[in-house]
């Protein structure tokens, strides 16, 4: 049977992701201090507190509108580059899943692709510019491969673990890139050798998501 996620599961998932990312705020701050202005820890903390507050309140019934609301909450709570972009990503995934009470994993991969497209549109960055995009793109490829290899009844845990592993590899690879966009680009060549903090945040996110389903019976 095709694996799906319903709205309740999505909410639980986002709560787990929020906790996971908040736990990593100090490493993210340290990475951003090297390459940017050091506020990514605070951005992530504030943004995910915003999501947790939204999760505690009334939310729509469908997966799409729920994600859209959570994205808005994130952006307004954490108004930095990552905040604006991650919020946009959630909102665009939500638009892609509008009116759905459940989403298949294939639809989840498509929604992530829609988010990536929107990020590139808003942020004007390309793959290889040393940004969060460089973690998201390989995660999408890995999601699609997991479905192709294991069929559409693959467990959500396996599906997300593949994404997480790919995202982490992508984040690690940003270390060898030279920053072309955002605050880190002002460092020019000196940015080489340092891992992009936004990409690492994305890798942590997929990791927390995978761990959430892996820990379920």
């Amino acid at each position: 049977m095709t694996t799906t996620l319903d709205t309740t599961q999505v909410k639980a998932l986002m709560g787990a992701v929020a906790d996971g990312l908040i736990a990593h705020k100090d490493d993210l701050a340290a990475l951003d201090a090297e390459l940017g202005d050091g506020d990514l820890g605070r951005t992530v903390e504030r943004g995910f507190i915003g999501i947790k507050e939204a999760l505690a309140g009334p939310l729509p019934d469908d997966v799409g509108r729920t994600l859209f609301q959570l994205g808005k909450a994130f952006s307004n709570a954490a108004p930095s580059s990552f905040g604006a972009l991650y919020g946009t990503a959630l909102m665009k995934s939500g638009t892609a899943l509008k009116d759905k009470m459940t989403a298949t994993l294939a639809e989840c991969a498509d929604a992530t692709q829609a988010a990536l497209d929107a990020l590139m549109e808003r942020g004007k960055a390309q793959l290889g510019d040393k940004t969060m995009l460089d973690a998201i793109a390989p995660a999408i490829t890995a999601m699609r491969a997991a479905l192709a290899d294991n069929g559409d009844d693959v467990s959500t845990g396996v599906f997300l673990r593949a994404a997480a592993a790919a995202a982490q590899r992508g984040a690690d690879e940003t270390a060898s890139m030279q920053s072309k966009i955002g605050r880190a680009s002002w460092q020019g060549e000196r940015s080489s050798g340092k891992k992009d903090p936004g990409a690492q945040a994305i890798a942590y996110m997929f990791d927390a998501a995978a761990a959430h389903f892996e820990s379920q019976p």
Partner: protein
Amino acid sequence: MKKILNNPEDYVPEMLAGLLAAHPGRLKSVGGDVHCIVRAESPIEGKVGIVTGGGSGHLPVFLGYVGRGMLDGCAVGDVFASPTIDQMYETTKAVNGGAGVLHLFGNYGGDVMNFAAAADQADMEDSIEVATVLVADDVASAPADRASSRRGVAGMVYAFKIAGALAEEKASLAQVKAIAEHCLANTRSMGVALGPCTVPQVGKPTFTLADDEMEIGMGIHGEQGVRRGKLQTADEIVDQLIQPILDDMPLDGGEISVMLNSLGGTPLEELYIMYRRLLEVLKQHDITVYRPYIGRFATSMEMVGASLTVLKLDDELKRLLDAPASTPFFDQSQYV
């Protein structure tokens, strides 16, 4: 650095509450959110509204330039953090007098992306025509071939003054946008930092410099500059601020306006010591100074250091620079 504050989390809202209470006839907030500040007389029918926004901690930037002959509104973020899309959107709506709104702000990722979203929203929901001009004047932050990715620093004050003056004359949105772009095409800045500042909610300095060190080209939030080295004399520092500007924007003589700006902790006395040297260097290049602006125009709280901004003048820029402007933090009549 010791600060006079209450709970650090209340730093920005308390500051804004005090500020709004101090200037009631000139500023007001929008819909009860102290982070959205507009001219008391907003919206002004038929006038292009100019909106800026950015993090707190840079007074008089940004909101200090809201007033007659300059800006119409400002969305205010937390210290060194972008305002939210909602705040930008509400501010935009509040200054719309039917002639469109110019978003004029510094080139920082969070601000850029949030202002883009706010502009979309104003267009979608209220059919407000929004144009955007980014300030990217800091020559230290990228080479000339990537000039559009540069940081925005004190040069934005010239853009506020020039675009604000034309908007006050009820020029069209296209005209106001064009003059802001023209002004910024002729504006370059370069700074030096001698000591850090502390973001209240963080509680520790943004960077460290040894007792005998300075950093040429450092950004106003502590972003890496072009060269860290031993603290040099005022004359040597001035030479290293003006030269990259002249390299980037060649001036064959002619007239410029200069802004010699303290980042906060550096006293005015030192700016005048620098200005003395600046005039010597400019004289060697047959460049004359029109209307110097010497003081604190764009700060980073108590950061120690200074920045130099050059605006290359033509007749139209001169006319608009001369135009009256009055805000609670800036009055053009002081600069004659």
